[in-house]
């Protein structure tokens, strides 16, 4: 064999090998094939972050795979809110779990989306260094606190706590950080505290360097942060698909609130197959105590959103006063209220 032929054969072999490996390891075939389906049967892509506020998304995906009709949607994990927001604006995803104030702000800026359901209630906390000098909200004066986004309820909860404790808006320096970065930053002393959703407070607690200063519910009864938004064009063209999605999420919420075995099971499969986090960490966040974060009732309520909107206007991140109906569509949650929890047991391999 000539040298030229050898090189050519090697090059072709190499190309075939890496293409096959790429196809096997990297390509999400479900998503690729989905694009070739007729528009009416195409599965919705739902964006989510690896936080327990959005746990119903992977839970629904996992359990529905065992159900008669198969998976309901295509989940796609992101690492931060700005990326999700961009994917949503540019129609790369049709539905997403984002923080409530961000949804209101995007609607105010003319992005055609609607809030159709909540992701959870409770489950956010302000965490400080375990042996640090901060023991009360008043001690936070002049300190640096990380928040996930300026459009987050974790920021608003800080403002509420400050107001109750007689502090001025400028008394705390807030910095926006991606949720996965905050635990490390607190451990290294780069920030004095953070206000985040689970499992990051649990992570700091478990690792032994963090202490929960207060839970969100201490200053905000019925606290909610992450919500499910859907693009308006999807609501207009395929309301049935949106209804199926909301029903699935509602059933997962009820299933998660059934008891400790369900929570332990969810911690296990979500940690391993979706979030790439230790199941022990999620188990901590979901069960210590059980109502650290809850998943029912999740229908959007006017009072909750009015409060979020007013806090947003008060803290200068919303200019015009939007009405509840302008950014929510409650018909899906109304219909989902008759749903019951998934009939699914760990390892059974069937869900109904």
């Amino acid at each position, binding site marked *: 064999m000539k040298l030229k032929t050898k090189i050519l054969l090697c090059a072709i072999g190499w190309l075939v090998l890496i293409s096959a490996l790429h196809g096997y390891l990297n390509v999400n075939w479900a998503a690729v094939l989905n694009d070739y389906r007729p528009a009416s049967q195409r599965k919705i892509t739902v964006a989510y972050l690896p936080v327990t506020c959005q746990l119903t998304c992977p839970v629904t995906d996992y359990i529905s795979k065992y159900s008669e009709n198969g998976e309901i949607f295509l989940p796609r994990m992101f690492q931060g809110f700005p990326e999700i927001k961009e994917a949503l604006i540019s129609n790369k995803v049709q539905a997403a779990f984002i923080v409530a104030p961000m949804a209101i702000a*995007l609607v105010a800026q003319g992005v055609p989306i609607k809030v159709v359901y909540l992701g959870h209630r409770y489950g956010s906390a302000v965490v400080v260094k375990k042996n640090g000098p901060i023991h009360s909200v008043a001690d936070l004066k002049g300190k640096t606190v990380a928040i996930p*986004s300026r*459009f987050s309820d974790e920021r608003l909860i800080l403002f509420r706590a400050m107001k109750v404790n007689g502090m001025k808006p400028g008394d705390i320096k807030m*910095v926006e950080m991606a949720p996965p970065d905050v635990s*490390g930053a607190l451990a*290294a002393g*780069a*920030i004095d505290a953070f206000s985040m959703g689970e499992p990051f407070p649990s992570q700091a607690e478990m690792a032994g360097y963090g202490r929960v200063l207060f839970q969100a519910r201490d200053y905000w009864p019925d606290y909610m942060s992450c919500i499910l938004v859907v693009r308006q064009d999807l609501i207009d063209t395929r309301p049935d698909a949106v209804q199926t999605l909301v029903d699935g999420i509602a059933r997962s919420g009820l299933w998660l609130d059934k008891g400790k075995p369900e929570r332990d099971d969810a911690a296990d499969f979500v940690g391993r197959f979706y979030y790439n986090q230790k199941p022990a960490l999620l188990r901590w966040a979901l069960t210590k105590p059980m109502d650290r974060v809850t998943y029912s009732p999740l229908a959007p309520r006017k009072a909750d959103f009015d409060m979020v909107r007013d806090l947003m206007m008060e803290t200068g991140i919303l200019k015009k006063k939007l009405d509840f109906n302008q950014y929510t569509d409650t018909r899906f949650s109304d219909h989902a209220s008759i749903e019951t929890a998934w009939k699914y047991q760990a390892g059974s391999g069937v869900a109904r």
Partner: protein
Amino acid sequence: MSTLAEPKRWEKFFWPLLVSALLLAAWHYCIVWTATRIFPSPLEVERGMAELLREHVLWGDISDSLRRVAIGFGAATALGIPLGLVLGWYPAADYVVNPVMQILRPISPIAWIPVAIIFFGVGDDAAIFLIFLGAFFPIVVACIDGVSNVPSVYRRAGRNFGLSPQQLLRQVVFPAALPQIIVGLRIALGIAWLVVVAAEMIAVDSGLGYLVIDSRNSGKRYDLVVAAMLLIGVIGLALDLGFRRLEKIKSVRWGFRNEA
């Protein structure tokens, strides 16, 4: 316009401006043609820039970015030039240090972000550290190359005049290597300005890099994002033009073959 002919005075400005105008027009018509509601048109960007000017944040951001680059780049120059001269002058030392430097050199300053936060916290220091890292290695390498490329006849001549090693380095080798060092500095300044966006991502609350991140975080404000990007580009161009003036200094100019 042939490559040899000196461009006329008006041509120096006319052609670059024409290309920029054509690009702007192409951008504008792409937006009109695709009817996108997401990406901003040049006019919207201009309006966004005017809004930033009105809110008096722009000048503060520009000066903060320039200050961070000045400190980071200044420190890289102050440490990098002496180190580069020494390493170039003593090949044995270069032999020892070079492998480590070649390992550190290709690591992107962005990869240093977590480390920078641990060492310097979130704030100015971490940002300056990243800019320093971006500029330091190109300067050192340019100095080493500059010194080792000095023809040995210069050194021998210097020695024949009875110069001590220090005098030789200061009065002969450094001036001889200066043209190459200046080129290295210019490249390093470009990199330092390039790193500014990544550096200001670390929870700093001012600067043009922060402006990009901040505009991104504030929902659908891509007009501000693009405005900040354009500003970074224009200021980068101004910095480069300013630095080119240094190359015109008499003690450096001899090193550039085309400029007699």
